[in-house]
Structure formats: C-alpha cells, structure tokens
C-alpha cells in the first residue's frame, strides 16, 4: 500500500459532525428508499450505497464550492454527500416533476449541473472521461476547480479508465479519480476480473500519483482526498485513490446477493462506515448520546418530509413532455 498522508492532530468537531451527518443521511436515504422501492413506488434500477458511505462522505467533505463531481450507477451517496436536496432526489426516484430531472432521469441519472454535480451514469466507466473533461474545462477557463470522478472496480477494467486517466495526466489536470473497490461487479469478484486486485497500481504505470485507503474510514478518506485536492489545485494532478470497501447487500434492491461470503460481509459490517463516523464524533469531540440522537432524528425527519413532498408532487404532463421534446 502506498504512503498515506498523516492525520492532522485533532479533527474539528465541525468536521466530525459533518462526516457523521453525511454518512448517516446516506444510510437513511438508502434504507428508507429501499422500502419505497419494495412498495412499488420506485421503478427501474436502484443500486444502494449501503456499506460504502465512508467514501462519498470523506471525499466530498474535502471539496469546495465550484468543484465538480461525476458519479456512478450507484450514485445516491455521492449526490447526498455533495449536498443535494433530498426532496428533489426522492421526487426524482418517484418520477415527479419536482425531481432533479423532472422524472426524466431516475436513480441512474440524477444530476445537478448548475451545482457542479455532473450526474450519476448508467454506463459503467463513463464518469471518468466526463470528469476529465470537466477538469479540462476548468483548466481552460483558468479556474482552480477540482473534479472528482467516483468510479468502481468494475470500471477500472474498461478501456475508458486508462485512456482518459492518461489524458488527465499529460495535461496535468486537477482531477481525482476515486475507485470505490467494493470487490464485486454484480456477482463477479475482483479476483475474477483482474490478476492485480490492488487497483491503484494501474495509475503508477502511466505516471499518476496513486494511493490506497480504507474506504470504510470516512476520516481517512477525507484526509487523503484533502491532500490530493491540494496537490491538484497546485497543478500536480491528477491523482488516483483506491478506496477498498464492501457492499452491505446485493447489487441492486432485487439482488439477494447470496454469492457474497458471510464471513467477509460480517468483517465489513463490523467496520461499518456510519458507525465509524458516529464513534469518531463521540470519541473525538465529546458530543453526547442525546445530541447524536437529535442529529439522527433531524435527518430522519428530513427524509420523511422529502417523501411527503414527493408524494404530493405531480408528474410531468404529456403536454409539457411534448413541448420539452419538440426540437429533438
């Protein structure tokens, strides 16, 4: 494993709370979202981020306004960590006019362009060239924005990965590629997909600074990203970060995930990123259980409100649809 940046002595309570809030909000969103799916309120694909919350949480906490993210088919977590409006997210899943994409996109396509979220993507691997493109646009405009693409172990075996990371490298773009190595592509293991399951090594062959981090440790992810982002802003990008993690369930809501070995699942559940964020917050900031409970119920309430809002929202009408698509 390559060198990791040193942990600053004391993370601020603000930071710790932010990390916990984000991780917990993702956890609630996915857990409750799955229920809505099972009730038949959500159609199409729903790929839960459960178990991987540490990554989006840590990465996005290290970014600032004006930066860009590009996401995957498993994109709810990135969206929430980026600060999305949960109302608009739920509304989108419920195909309502008040959703981020007015019901045209759904789970795999939530985006928020004006805010620098280039969107989830239904094509595995597509976020990498798109993210490199955003970083290129920033460089051309002379902005100091950094772009992060969240990618996957599966995507790293696709040609787009090396091809576009190489472009980022020769152009020294402010681009961070975060590989969420959850060790599965649906039921196919990373070991079946490559001889070298340490994916960060691929960056080294094309001269890209590359690191590995425990994706279930939000604080470690945050710190490594902060370092990477600083280097990128100083013109020393791109940087590759491989975050090892594991799903808490099957590939999508309807996949029982029977192929996931029980012991491995137990190992990772014992290293639950939301618990870690909560423990970090309590242990390092001295916040008490009641305050934690207050945060949690506030977040649960936010989600409930979002469901309420979405249920009360209407869908796009055929007339609106025709007007919108008239010039295609």
């Amino acid at each position: 494993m390559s060198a990791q940046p040193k942990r600053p002595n004391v993370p601020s309570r603000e930071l710790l709370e932010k990390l916990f809030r984000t991780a917990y909000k993702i956890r609630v969103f996915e857990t409750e979202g799955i229920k809505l799916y099972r009730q038949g309120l959500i159609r199409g694909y729903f790929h839960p981020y459960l178990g991987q919350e540490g990554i989006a949480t840590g990465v996005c906490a290290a970014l600032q306004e004006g930066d860009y993210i590009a996401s995957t088919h498993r994109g709810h977590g990135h969206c929430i960590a980026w600060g999305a409006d949960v109302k608009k997210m739920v509304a989108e899943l419920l195909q309502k006019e008040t959703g981020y994409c007015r019901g045209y996109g759904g789970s795999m396509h939530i985006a928020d362009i004006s805010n620098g979220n280039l969107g989830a993507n239904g094509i595995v691997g597509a976020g990498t060239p798109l993210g490199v493109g955003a970083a290129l646009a920033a460089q051309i405009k002379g902005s100091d924005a950094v772009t992060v693409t969240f990618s996957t172990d599966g995507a790293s075996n696709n040609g787009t990965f090396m091809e576009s990371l190489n472009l980022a490298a020769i152009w020294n773009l402010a681009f961070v590629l975060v590989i969420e190595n959850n060790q599965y592509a649906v039921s196919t293991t990373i070991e079946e997909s490559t001889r070298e399951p340490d994916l960060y090594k691929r960056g080294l062959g094309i001269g890209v600074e590359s690191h590995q981090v425990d994706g279930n440790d939000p604080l470690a992810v945050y710190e490594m990203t902060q370092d990477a982002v600083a280097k990128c802003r100083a013109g020393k990008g791109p940087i590759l970060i491989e975050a090892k993690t594991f799903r808490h369930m099957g590939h999508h809501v309807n996949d029982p995930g029977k192929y996931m070995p029980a012991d491995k699942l137990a190992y990772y559940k014992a290293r639950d990123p939301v618990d870690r964020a909560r423990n970090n917050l309590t242990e390092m900031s001295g916040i008490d259980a009641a305050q934690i409970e207050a945060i949690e119920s506030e977040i649960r309430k936010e989600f409930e409100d979002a469901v309420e809002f979405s249920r009360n929202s209407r869908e796009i009408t055929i007339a609106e649809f025709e007007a919108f698509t008239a010039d295609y």
Partner: protein
Amino acid sequence: MYRDALREAIDEEMARDKTVFIIGEGIAERGGSYKVTEGLLAKYGPKRVRDTPIAEAGMIGVGVGAAIAGARPIVEILYVDFAMLGMDMLVNQAAKFRLMTGGDGRVPFVMRTQGGTGGGVAAQHSQSLEALFYHIPGLKVVMPSVPADAKGLLKYALRQSDPVMFLEHKHLYMTKGLVPEGEHIIEFGKADIKRPGKDVTIIAWSNMIPRALEAAAKLAEEGIDAEVLDPRTLVPLDKEAILTSVAKTNRVVIVQEAVRRGGVASDIASIIQEEAFYQLDAPIEIVAGLNIPVPFNLELEKASVPQVPGIMAAVRRSLHLAPAAIAAQ
C-alpha cells in the same frame, strides 16, 4: 419460454460443435441477467462458458478475433446500449473483414444482446438500435419475436459464417410459445406471416409483433383483416415476401419500437415505394418510437413507443377511414 428456447439453441449447438463458446457478464455461475445461460457452465465447463469483466469493447473484440481464428463465439452484451462501446470492433472489424481479405477471412461471430423499453430503466438502457447495425454491410441482423423463431434463428446463426447481431427484447424473455421438437433451424431471410390477412400489411418485428397482433385482433372486430408480417431477420430482408403481401393488400403499416428518424421502417418503406409504387393505395404509414431518448417516467416511457391504439389508428388511416370513423372508436 423465449429464454428457454434461446438456451436450448445454445445448448444443442455447444453439444454439436466444440468450438462454440459463450462469454459475457455474469453468464456463468449466475446464469445471466435473463437466465438464458443457466446450467451451461455445469454442462460445458469454465473454458466454454466464461464470465468477463465489464469490458464490452474487449469482449466483442476478442469474440471477433476468436471467430477469425476459427472458433464460434457467442458474446452476450447485457444491453444493446452497451454495444456502443464495441462499435469499432463491429463496424470496422467484424463487418469489414470478409471483403477486405478478398473473401478468405470469415467471421462466424454472434453477439447476443437485448433492447427495448421496459419498466423505467431510462435512456441508457431502453434503446432499440437495430438501425445502426442494419446500415453496416457485412452484419446480419436478427430480431426474433417468438420462442420458436428465437431457437431456430440462433441455431442457424451458429452455423453460418458472417457476424450476426442477434437482438432479443427484454419484454420477451418470459413470453411463451410452441417450439417444434427435434432439430429446428430457421434460415435467415425468410419472413413469417404471423397472421394472414387481406386488407392491409402490418410489418413488425421483435416486441412489436405481440402489439401488432393485438391490434390486428381488435381491428378484426371492426371488420378489418390485417396481415402481420414478421421479417424475423432484417439483414437479409425477405423483400419478396413483403412485396407479395403488398401486392395483395395494397396498404402498408410498419411498426418499430426504435425511433422514427432513420429507422429500419424508413428503409423498408423506401424499398416498397420504389418497387411497388403503382400498387400502393395509400401512403405507407410508419408507427415508431418518438425521436427522443426514452424518459424514466413510466407514462412518458409509454408515450415514447408504439402502443396498440397507435397501430390501430395508422391502419385506419391507411384504409382512408375518415377521422370521424376513427374518433368513433
């Protein structure tokens, strides 16, 4: 069921010819997302039934290479949308190889994949892209609508020597239908009259066949006798069967799920108007997908592709039934 028919074809051909093999994402142990390849790993082993990483360009490319080197690969691509990643290998290699080598190089390659709308999987998982392959000389394009055709055509695909785009439909896997016992093979280029009729020819394929048949059945109640013609393979296209039907009915409605602009329906229409101009009693009607990416919202998705009432309306138009008569429906 359609998916069982496909499995039978693969199974029988793998048993017959040891150079037939299949690769794809999750097709081995897991049996594929649509369960078409279930049980094949156990029967034929991991050499001939392999999972791949998410590497569509690579899978298609190695399939084409293996075919050139004399094996008979089946490459399963989960969604036809993802075949776009391998277009270079299809368009510039597989399709070109035979001509470029003056005939010596053959590419007995089969890409199995599925397309079409279905249940809110949105713009990147709902396309019907047969027109892209149709336009590339050297590729065969097969679109079975019923289990028997699925089996017979896939078996034929695995015995001929040109690259085949074998395009299934996500809505059809669980549909039922009789499949003839024993060796059942269907040659390419033979259309099938799925319903004989004399008033109008409805040309449709893949998942538009059930809809066309439903429309025909309803039209029959109105006294309209529609013939439903399924080309089954778009390349080669059974022009003769189409022209024979048109000569009988003098009216044509073509139904495709793919978007209207530049679709295969347009090409078939252009052929009919060229070769049967003086037999047409009305403009050829095309009922097709809207010229837009498919929306996630289910109502909008439905509005984006042909439905039974739209097919019926087009038939009535082609029979010059007054809008009033139509409105009365």
